[in-house]
């Protein structure tokens, strides 16, 4: 692999970037072979259990691309149907399934997994880690998605695919208007995607914050890693809304809890609020990582550092948070007061500011350097053209009166394809061409690449630009055919021709991929672009031979000999001092080495857990409850076995990693990766709960008539008793923590047992008091909302009691002591959170109606 040179200053170092080598001398013979042996993935059938990020990342990207092709084929069928008026190629029933699956698969099975996959593939090397902190979690996320996604997709072959649009609006999707299991496939099928996305998000957040190379302070993090961090945080706050929404709609469909039925006090708009609170940030969840990729590609293509690094990071963070204030702009035609709409209209225009910052930064970077007009650069330029056009029509539809005119027309179809295809697919192709030399022995063909770009770029504009006009001419979305002579005929034919041009481009790309792509391992094509970031260091299954000290944003440009010194093992952790897989955990802000994380080996548990998680959700769709429960049980059993192997304790003495630094190999408390993951999981749980509170208050706002008088509520003594029991349980857990500090494991087990009894007691009181009122969840939206909170209470109570039992079992098995306490800490954190959440729920359900005096 060629050593990178600074594009401006040749190989001359800048004095500030000279850092002493931690391991300057020659390395012992056999050290590298040992490292190779440890990180080699298993062979044969056990290859499926591999967890190295380079293998899982490639599978993940490949699967996402497969779904892009599948959903693209659905798009082609639709375009063929619409090519001429009054076509009878497909009927309305299949057409409804086609557009629903096209949108759903593109969003849930292609776009989000694709960018998450690129994170798994690139981040460890880009950050200088051996792997992300939870490699089995990444693999679990992948397999749940792979198996579940394929089964979900195949529903279209059996007339079982959902047909309510990718946004599944009730009342159309309620059981009354959509009987059968088609919509259930969507509601439950999306379940494993949500789990997979959240698992990936936790991995990425902890990875970016805690496994960066020493010296990679916040202002030296590659822009892609910043984008992935914001992406993952957005998943944490946005996906809970769709999780709750799907639960509510499934409860309504399966058990008639009337959250969305207006006649019983429900409101279909509740779905729209929850769906778009997820759905709009989702657009930016897809766009930001793509923008992050562009911010990596542009400086390399221009051979100069990105202009305005801080502004670009600001733009990523700014887009991330402003995108949560846009959701109602999908609901401009629902009768919400104009002033309320204008808040969202303003926020929709404000979000153009950070997007604009990024666009100008890329243009300025191109202008500042000497651009190599290679295929990745072409796709970036295509992205800029298409995305800016989509952004401009975005500002148009952000204006409420204009949106009223074009709502549900092909103008909107044109707009969001310009934004999504332009903002995500073009950058993704740029990324494929740019990073394939990092994983493959050969780069892709430059000549074919130009044809691929030409076909896709021209095809895209031929397909989607006319749709603006088709929409302004009045053609509505989601119609399976149209009458001749309405002025839409020629426009539709042109769009169809464009769609097939895109398909030809993608086909050519696949052919080139088949010809050129060969997994590289240690023999990848290397730094063919003369890029400056760490993923272009020589690498193998173990990532980099040694972990560099980072002194700038483009270390390969600024630190001469970095590649050779890393490969010769002159930086940190040149071998495997504990004899196993490991990576350095660094502090979140300043990236100082803190401890050495011992990483897991491949195992079947995450694979079995993932397959049966997907099976659980999908079988539930067919109302095969018993089989589904068996699958759920197998999934849980596999995951428990996996968990049992975690928390190894201090199995090894502190080890030297070079430069006089000796790191412990075990950590507990806030410095451990496990603590961070648990805190993020709590944020997810809190977001779901926040959405439940919103749902309760929203239903009360629209239907106060179904809220009961205070006299008909359960007597106050019941919730108060439950609250006392909950507080007592949390005190027991706090006591157990202190007892564990003193090594009194028996007392810990007893205290956890008592806490569990109190937790279950509190739930029993809560449920019994409610049942006693003779209120039933099917009575009204109020009743459904109240039972929702009791159900949440029960779910969390069961979860923490299960965690307590697991912790007690660890105590009995002597896997718990005053040092080895990560399992206990996780249980403790989640327990305290559960109590706080349940108390808030009790206060809302029992206190709110009394407070408002209804």
């Amino acid at each position: 692999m060629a050593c990178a040179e600074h594009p401006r200053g040749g190989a001359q170092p800048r004095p500030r970037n000279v850092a002493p080598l931690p391991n300057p001398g020659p390395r012992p013979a056999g050290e590298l072979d040992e490292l190779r042996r440890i990180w080699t993935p298993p062979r044969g059938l056990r290859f499926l259990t591999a967890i190295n990020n380079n293998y899982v990342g490639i599978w993940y990207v490949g699967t996402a691309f497969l779904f892009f092709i599948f959903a693209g084929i659905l798009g082609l069928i639709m375009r063929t149907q619409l090519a001429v008026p009054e076509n009878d190629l497909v009927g309305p029933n299949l057409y409804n399934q086609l557009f629903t699956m096209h949108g759903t698969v593109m969003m849930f099975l292609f776009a989000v997994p694709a960018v998450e996959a690129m994170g798994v593939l690139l981040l460890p090397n880009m950050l200088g880690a051996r792997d992300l902190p939870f490699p089995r979690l990444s693999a679990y996320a992948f397999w749940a998605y792979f198996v579940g996604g394929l089964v979900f997709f195949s529903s279209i072959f059996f007339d079982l695919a959902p047909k309510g649009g990718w946004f599944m609006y009730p009342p159309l999707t309620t059981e009354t208007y959509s009987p059968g299991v088609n919509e259930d496939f969507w509601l439950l099928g999306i379940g494993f995607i949500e789990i997979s996305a959240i698992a990936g998000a936790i991995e990425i957040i902890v990875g970016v914050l805690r496994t960066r190379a020493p010296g990679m302070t916040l202002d030296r993090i590659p822009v892609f890693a910043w984008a992935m961090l914001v992406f993952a945080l957005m998943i944490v706050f946005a996906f809970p809304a769709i999780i709750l929404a799907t639960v509510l709609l499934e409860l309504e469909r399966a058990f008639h809890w009337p959250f969305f039925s207006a006649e019983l006090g429900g409101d279909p708009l509740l779905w729209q609020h929850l769906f778009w609170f997820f759905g709009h940030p989702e657009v930016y969840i897809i766009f930001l990582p793509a923008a992050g990729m562009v911010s990596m590609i542009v400086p390399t293509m221009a051979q100069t550092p990105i202009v305005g690094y801080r502004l670009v990071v600001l733009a990523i963070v700014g887009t991330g948070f402003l995108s949560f204030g846009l959701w109602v702009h999908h609901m401009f035609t629902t009768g919400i007061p104009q002033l309320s709409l204008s808040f969202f209209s303003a926020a929709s225009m404000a979000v153009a500011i950070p997007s604009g910052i990024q666009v100008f930064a890329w243009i300025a970077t191109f202008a500042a350097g000497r651009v190599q007009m290679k295929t990745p650069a072409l796709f970036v330029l295509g992205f800029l053209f298409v995305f800016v056009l989509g952004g401009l029509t975005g500002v148009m539809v952000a204006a409420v009166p204009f949106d009223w005119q074009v709502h549900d027309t092909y103008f909107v179809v044109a707009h969001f394809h310009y934004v999504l295809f332009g903002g995500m697919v073009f950058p993704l192709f740029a990324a494929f061409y740019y990073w394939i030399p990092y994983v493959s022995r050969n780069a892709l063909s430059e000549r074919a690449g130009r044809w691929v770009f030409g076909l896709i770029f021209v095809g895209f504009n031929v397909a989607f630009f006319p749709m603006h006009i088709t929409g302004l001419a009045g053609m509505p979305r989601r119609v399976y055919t149209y009458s001749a002579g309405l002025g839409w005929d020629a426009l539709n034919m042109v769009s169809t021709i464009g769609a097939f041009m895109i398909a030809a481009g993608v086909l050519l790309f696949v052919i080139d991929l088949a010809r050129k792509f060969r997994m590289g391992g240690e023999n990848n094509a290397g730094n063919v672009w003369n890029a400056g970031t760490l993923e272009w260091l020589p690498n193998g299954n173990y990532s980099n031979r040694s972990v560099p000290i980072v002194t700038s944003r483009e270390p390969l440009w600024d630190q001469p000999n970095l590649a050779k010194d890393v490969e010769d093992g002159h930086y940190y952790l040149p071998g495997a001092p504990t004899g196993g897989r490991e990576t350095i955990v660094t502090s979140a802000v300043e990236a100082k080495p803190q401890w050495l994380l011992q990483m897991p080996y491949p195992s079947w548990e995450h694979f079995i857990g993932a397959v049966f998680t997907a099976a659980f959700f999908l079988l539930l769709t067919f109302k095969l409850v018993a089989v589904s429960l068996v699958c759920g049980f197998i999934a849980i059993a596999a995951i428990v076995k996996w968990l049992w192997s975690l928390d190894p304790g201090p199995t090894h003495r502190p080890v030297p990693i070079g430069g006089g630094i000796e790191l412990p190999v075990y950590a507990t408390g806030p410095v451990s990766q496990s603590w961070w993951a648990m805190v993020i999981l709590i944020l997810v749980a809190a977001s779901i709960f926040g959405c439940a509170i919103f749902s309760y208050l929203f239903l009360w706002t629209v239907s106060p008539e179904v809220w009961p008088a205070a006299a008909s509520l359960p007597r106050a003594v019941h919730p108060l008793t439950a609250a006392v029991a909950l507080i007592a349980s949390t005190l027991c857990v706090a006591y157990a923590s202190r007892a564990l500090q003193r090594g009194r494991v028996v007392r810990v087990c007893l205290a956890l047992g008592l806490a569990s009894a109190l937790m279950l007691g509190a739930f029993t009181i809560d449920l019994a008091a409610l049942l006693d009122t003779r209120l039933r969840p099917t009575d009204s939206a109020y009743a459904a909302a109240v039972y929702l909170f009791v159900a949440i209470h029960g779910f969390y109570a069961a979860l923490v009691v299960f965690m307590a039992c697991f912790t007690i079992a660890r105590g009995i098995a002597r896997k718990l002591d005053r040092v080895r306490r990560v399992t206990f800490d996780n249980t403790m954190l989640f327990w305290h959170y559960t109590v706080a959440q349940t108390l808030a729920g009790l206060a809302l359900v029992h206190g709110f109606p009394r407070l408002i005096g209804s």
Partner: protein
Amino acid sequence: MTAEARPFAPTALRMSAGIIVWAVHFAVIYGYTGLACARRFHDTGAMWTGAVPWVIGIATAIAAALMVLLILPALRARESRDFVQWMSAAIAGLALIGILYEAVPVFMLPVCT
């Protein structure tokens, strides 16, 4: 184990302060307007305009003042090398634009039509 000179939680909180205030402001102005219109109490309350514009105005003034407090230290600093300080102020600046821009329509539109 090396000590961290800059603990993560306060740093993250400082950098997200602008975001949090923006989110609370947005929730207050949208939530209050929605409630006032649903329950028809928008035309009662203070002075001649009804309660909603006053609530939006006061919430906006408080949020904007908090943003200025976050931005000032960065402006006063002699050099802007500190990434965390710069980013906290820049995020607050962007949030301030959002806060003011989102509140402007209250001068232009009737409350509940």
